[in-house]
């Protein structure tokens, strides 16, 4: 197994790098997009709430692979040429953002409605009340489930393999089919995933304890 690792070192590392990059990009953008849609789901304006709901329900209930294929095959046909890595990362971002929106919305709903009422009664706009009072309190409810979402995101990034995204899973498939050392290859791939996901898990647990 050591030999397998060293002789395919650069392929593994490059796959690891693309997986890491895709995960970081998707994490960053899905957090922003997800939080925005979470807030849309709780605004006083009904039309905006419906938009938020529709977005979340659609993308949460379609398989990630389908969303990714859509971006890989359909977007280049009509709009702009994108490679597998980009398509996969966009798919991952959108899919994850729907789950993050649900998580953040649940966090917002856990905050005592009296907090929003007090803020509004003092003349704060809905957005100011959100920013200064509700979201900071929602944050601590959101940390544990958000940690799960981040770990899921990293694992789900293996969808890039289906669209030639050059990620860890893609490289693993290639190495396995060249060397026929299928089991060992996927063990190594698994370990590389753990290198990313375990620190996230531990860090989130640590953060959770600190906030409690």
């Amino acid at each position: 197994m050591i030999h397998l690792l060293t002789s395919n070192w650069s392929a593994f590392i490059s796959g690891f790098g693309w997986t890491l990059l895709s995960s970081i990009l998707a994490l960053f953008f899905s957090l922003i997009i997800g939080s925005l849609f979470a807030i849309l789901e709780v605004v006083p304006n009904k039309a905006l709430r419906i938009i938020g709901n529709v977005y979340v329900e659609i993308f949460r209930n379609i398989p990630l692979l389908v969303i990714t294929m859509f971006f890989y095959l359909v977007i280049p046909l009509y709009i702009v040429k994108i490679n597998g890595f980009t398509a996969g990362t966009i798919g991952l971002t959108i899919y994850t953002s729907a789950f993050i929106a649900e998580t953040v919305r649940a966090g917002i709903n856990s905050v005592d409605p009296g907090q929003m009422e007090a803020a509004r009664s003092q003349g704060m706009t809905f957005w100011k009340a959100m920013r200064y009072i509700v979201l900071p309190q929602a944050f601590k409810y959101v940390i544990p489930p958000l940690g799960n979402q981040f770990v899921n995101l990293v694992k789900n990034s293996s969808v890039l393999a289906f669209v030639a995204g050059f990620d860890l899973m893609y490289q693993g498939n290639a190495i396995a089919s060249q060397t026929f050392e299928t089991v060992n290859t996927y063990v190594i791939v698994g370990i590389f995933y753990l290198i990313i996901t375990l620190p996230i898990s531990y860090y989130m647990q640590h953060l959770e304890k600190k906030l409690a």
Partner: protein
Amino acid sequence: MSSMIEFRNVQKYYGEFHALKDINLEIDKGETVVLIGPSGSGKSTLSRTVNGLETIQEGQLIVNGRDIADKTTDINRIRRDVGMVFQHFNLYANKDVLENIMLAPRIVLKMNEEENKKQAMALLDQVGLADKAHNMPSQISGGQKQRVAIARSLAMKPRCMLFDEPTSALDPEMIDDVLGVIKYVTSQSDMTSLIVTHEMGFAQEVANRVIFMADGQVLEDDSKDKFFDHPTNERARQFLSKIIKH
């Protein structure tokens, strides 16, 4: 005297439920009005319509010269002038006591930071809690929370205050301190107050007027003396005799 709050044929529904039935009410600037009535009669609903926390479906509700049912009215502008004190205090849980008082003046009124802090400390002093400035809400007692909540409202320099059962969630030994602060607030000649309470002794002390509600209707609206001496409405009489026996 001109009026601070005026209800004109106001109807309020929660879905099908008719919560406020044709309310007509005028509260003058400087008046202290106590609102009483059995649980579920619509007291909270009525007071919460005054600052738009509940919307009304019909009629007009003029607060400080502006009709809050009018779509073009800026509700946030009205709320600056109308303080609200809640039964469960609703202090900002993520801010310490001082920040609870300073936040809205800073971000709504854009008050100068130095002046804001000076005012906040003066208010804390007034409610007897200057030494709690840097405590979090979770670290102070219910009575202290309510006094901070009153200071927080006063920091906006309101013309009108709404109190919705401000002492109902408090242990008995904490009630007097809070009532003392409210009494001081209502004694300021230009302050208009609407107070929902079951504290009849306190009502007799501070009220100019008493309003009795039941089933979403105003059944009696009298000067304090008339109300406590000989209320005309039968249900008001029954309610009083029950509540005073306790």
